[in-house]
């Protein structure tokens, strides 16, 4: 099971549709400051159910929709899709590919999808339960967060530990 593709449209600085295709091996994303690399990380966590705007560096959830630039107007819709290869049936879904998607409109309406069928957040969370993959999973280490475990006090570390293992 591996992440095959992430597709972003209207999410933060990704006004135009952009796809990133991956292999099972290691991939690196590079580029200048402020060009959108960490926004891809935010997108990943957003699709997997991140509910805190602050957790996505925003003040409200609508902040994830492309806000426009000097030369382009804001969009009214943000969409992110994750495509997983599920040949080994690691995910509890009867399909060799699993696509998870999340859509948010500027009027506030939002939607989750699994393989193009509308579903609820809890359905998405259920797929990834206990895999370590998720908005809060230990499998996403955000920028500036590397030494979070060290900065925490010993009780907080216990919590982190229990959630991870």
């Amino acid at each position, binding site marked *: 099971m*591996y*992440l095959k593709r992430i597709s972003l449209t209207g999410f*933060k*600085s*990704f*006004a*135009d549709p*952009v*796809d*990133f295709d*991956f*292999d*099972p*091996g*290691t*991939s*690196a*994303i*590079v*580029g*200048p400051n*402020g*060009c959108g*690399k*960490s*926004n*891809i*990380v935010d997108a*990943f966590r957003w699709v997997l159910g991140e509910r805190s705007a602050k957790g996505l560096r925003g003040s409200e959830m609508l902040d994830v929709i492309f806000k426009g*630039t*000097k*030369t*382009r107007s804001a969009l009214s819709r943000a969409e992110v899709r994750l495509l997983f290869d599920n040949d080994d049936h*690691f995910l509890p879904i009867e399909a060799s590919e699993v696509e998870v998607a999340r859509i948010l409109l500027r009027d506030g309406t939002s939607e989750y999808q699994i393989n193009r069928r509308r579903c609820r957040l809890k359905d998405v969370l259920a797929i990834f339960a206990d*895999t*370590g*993959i998720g908005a809060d*999973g*230990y*499998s*996403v*280490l*955000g*920028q*500036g*967060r*590397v*030494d*979070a*475990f*060290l900065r925490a*006090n*010993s*009780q907080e*570390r*216990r919590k982190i*530990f*229990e959630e*991870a*293992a």
Partner: protein
Amino acid sequence: CRTLFTDSFQEVRQNFQEIFSMMFGGGTGDLKLEENVDPLEAGIDVVARPPGKRISSLRLLSGGERSLTAISVIFALFKSRPSPFCILDEVDAALDEKNNRRFVRVLNEFAKTSQFLLITHSRISMVEAERLYGVTMEEQGVSCRVVVQIEDAKQWGDDPTMAVH
């Protein structure tokens, strides 16, 4: 329940000891449960002793030493509870070249069983990736994807448009 936690704790602790020495090229790292407290309540303390130095508080560690220690904890958790997928956003920012290379070597071990997505500015980390994506803003404020060769990545900072294929 106590046994479950203590067993998994001991396992992660063992992993941490091994991985710490790999990351630092020596030294000793340890995870300890708070003493004189019920193991079900005890907090977790981190001990980090870089090669040749005496044990002292985490705070006295240098920026790079803190990063390496924290990364070792993540990998120690990861080894006990592998996730098929992991995103690391600029975890190598504080590392000098030598430590960056060691980090990459340890990462490659884990990459045999998990898919890693690295966001990085470091040439040393990028070179190891099997797939390299560039993100840049050809139109101001709008992210787009570019295919990058390592040679382009080296001149990246000076002129992102050079990397466009």
